């Protein structure tokens, strides 16, 4: 079998060592300098805050917005980020104050404090109200994303109304790939689209690891898995949905901008649920064609290839030699 070699030029090798050595150093330092912990925490909090504030300006922020609801999701994210950031700075400030003000003084016994009911009441009720607020604020977005909102083409139980979707496809996860099946867009609509997920039709188009759509298309996805739990995640769509064994899980999105027509603009379909040894390799591409016409060109080309009744063009060294 193969042996792992330690590569000393890899920074990942030195990172935990550097981390541990600085930890030991801190222990030793704190024996001689009573403000060592205050200094460490100040540096950490200042660093984290500076990184967070600088992130949007150096491109370490959210990926591009690609679906009809990605803006809403981002607004929720920013709201929660603001609230938690505020309280992070507040509580960390208190910690710094305590570290500075109550650093051990040799020869002096520190005071013993046994709780404060009023204080505890405040720091329980205030976050409780905030959490309830967040829960209420996110409800319309959640309902819309789950198809419980007022979208006419998505009925409450996904059972009917399948005729309103522009594209109907099943994505079947398995260790470790996405198997995609499209329903022919020109076929008559289905009364019960959920059943189609397990009953393929002869005109279906089969593909692997590639989902195609176009801006404005109402894409209805029926997610299934062949083995373990996977999760269909496209960061740009702000769409993440688990696929559970034995169940058909419906979800949807409406792409807003073209993407994936070149390597630079490629959007990744990543599995967001640890699903086994090669989980990291379970990835696909989402291609949003510039318009409906180019999507249809792709679709008919792929469908023609799938119904190929003649020898495919040659590949390989011998074929290239004759070119």
């Amino acid at each position, binding site marked *: *079998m*193969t*042996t*792992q*070699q*330690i*590569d000393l030029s*890899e920074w*990942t*090798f030195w990172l*935990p*060592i550097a*981390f*541990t*050595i600085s*930890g*030991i150093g801190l*222990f030793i330092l*704190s*024996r001689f300098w009573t403000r060592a912990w205050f200094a460490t925490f100040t540096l950490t909090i200042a660093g984290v805050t500076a990184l967070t504030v600088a992130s949007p300006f150096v491109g370490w922020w959210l990926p591009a917005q690609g679906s009809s609801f990605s803006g809403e999701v981002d607004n929720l994210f920013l709201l929660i980020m603001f609230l938690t950031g505020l309280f992070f700075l507040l509580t960390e400030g208190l910690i710094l104050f305590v570290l500075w003000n109550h650093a*051990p*003084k*040799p*020869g*002096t*016994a*520190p005071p013993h404090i046994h709780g404060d009911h009023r204080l505890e009441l405040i720091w329980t009720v205030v976050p409780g109200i905030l959490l309830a607020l967040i829960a209420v604020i996110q409800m319309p977005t959640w309902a819309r994303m789950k198809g419980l909102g007022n979208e006419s083409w998505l009925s409450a139980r996904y059972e009917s109304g399948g005729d309103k979707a522009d594209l109907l496809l099943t994505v079947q996860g*398995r*260790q*470790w*790939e996405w*198997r995609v099946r499209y329903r022919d867009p020109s076929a008559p609509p289905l009364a019960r689209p959920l059943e189609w997920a397990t009953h*393929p*039709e*002869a005109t279906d188009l*089969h593909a*692997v*690891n*590639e989902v195609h759509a176009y801006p404005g298309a109402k894409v209805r996805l029926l997610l299934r898995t062949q083995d373990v739990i996977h999760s269909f995640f496209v960061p740009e769509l702000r769409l993440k949905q688990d696929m559970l064994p034995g169940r058909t899980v419906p979800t949807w999105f409406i792409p807003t901008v073209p993407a994936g027509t070149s390597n630079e603009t490629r959007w990744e379909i990543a599995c967001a649920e640890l699903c086994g*040894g*090669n989980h990291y*390799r379970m*990835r*696909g*591409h989402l291609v949003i064609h510039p318009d409906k016409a180019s999507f249809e060109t792709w679709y008919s080309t792929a469908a023609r*290839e*799938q*119904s*190929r*009744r*003649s*020898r*495919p063009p*040659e*590949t*390989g*060294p*011998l*074929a290239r030699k004759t070119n």
Partner: protein
Amino acid sequence: MGIIGKDLMPQTHINVTWFPAALLMALATLSGCGRVEWNDDLEYPDRTSSIVVLDKPPDQAPPGFPLPGRPAVVPEWLTARGVTLLNPASMSEKPWSDNWKNALHEELISHFATPGKPRLGAPDAPALTVLANELGLTESKLAEGARLYRRLCVQCHGMSGDGVGASSAWLSPAPRDLRTGDFKFISTAEHKLPSGFQPLKARPRHEDLVRSLRSGLEGTSMPSFALLGDESLEAIAAYVLHLSIRGELEFTVMNGALRQDRETLQLVTKSPEQEELIRYKRLLSTTLEWEDPEADVDDFVAKQSSPSIKAYAEKYIDRVLREYIAANKNPLPVPAYPYPENQPVPATSLTAGHTLFKAQCVNCHADYGRQSDLRFDIWGSVVRPANLTQSQYKGGRRPVDLYYRIARGIPPCAMPKANLGDTDPGRAGWDLVNFLQALPHPDQLPSDVRDQVYGPSRIKLGANP
């Protein structure tokens, strides 16, 4: 310093020294995961797994036998059914020299080198390198293929292509053992040879290998690698051929040596009929582009028979490479589709296909594959003929893929090619393809056929009693 204050100072903590040290050691074990190439000093392991000899294969495995798709690993069970298992470790006979095993090892190293620096053809056998390059097995491509294989394939297919990588024990069907040179899904036309001669092995074409990599094998654990791009897929295909040819040479030599059968170790069996031999020689000369077709027959046989492993290995690799090149130039002809394209398939075609299916295919695909009997493939694995009502096709779902399977068969699984008759084999082939494509979809079948396949009066053709 008071007693209470002393308690608060960290200098009295006894863990200070050993805890970070333990943490350091634990973290250090997580490091060093960056390298993904083979080590330079790594060699391919010699074959240790048994060689399965199916001279007279048992045509059926009884119901209840271990999982279909897995190797039949119970030796007593196999030998009781006429299967011979040859264990490379039990080899004591010495057909060539005292040290035949080492000699074989030396030859494998010199022709195929190591996983870190793979090549095909020893430096002192430039003719092999020329052939390998013609097949696209250049050293740079093999190196790239080995790198990708190390990253993506070795978990299942193993370092030497033995099909017993780390995760193979949990997979059904088991990953392919590449070391016999057999491939299932091929689109190569058959070479017809006179009887009495070793037939040419069914070699895959380059595009067959790339197709399997690009689309994966639906219904197995083999995923699609399409996102790597065609260049990478070709490099992997080249490296797979490298592994396969290496394994095949090892397999053949061990097989012959273990059976103490010098005939096996000759590339051409000598036939009493000189006429036949001349025809055979001519055929090989043209299809495999062997040199000096005019040389006399005895000389030809002598040349292809081998006194030493060294000479044999060179000849064998030469022959295998020529067979692969010939396969690439010899695609299975695909007859033109006899019905109008882009139109619904005529019911007569489906009925004709159904009749053909009932006449031949049900012998193995009992009840349209829903009640198939278990069988053996040449690797000694238990296999189940496909359930054709499921719309799941390992070798690809394009009509042309189904046509290849029908017209060429799946040689390693003893799936014969269909007998399409003499009058209009092209039409018969496409009738069968059309029927197979409609079979999983009851609404596509004519009503009488649908009744026979799915109806209450369903005839359980060829089913187990």
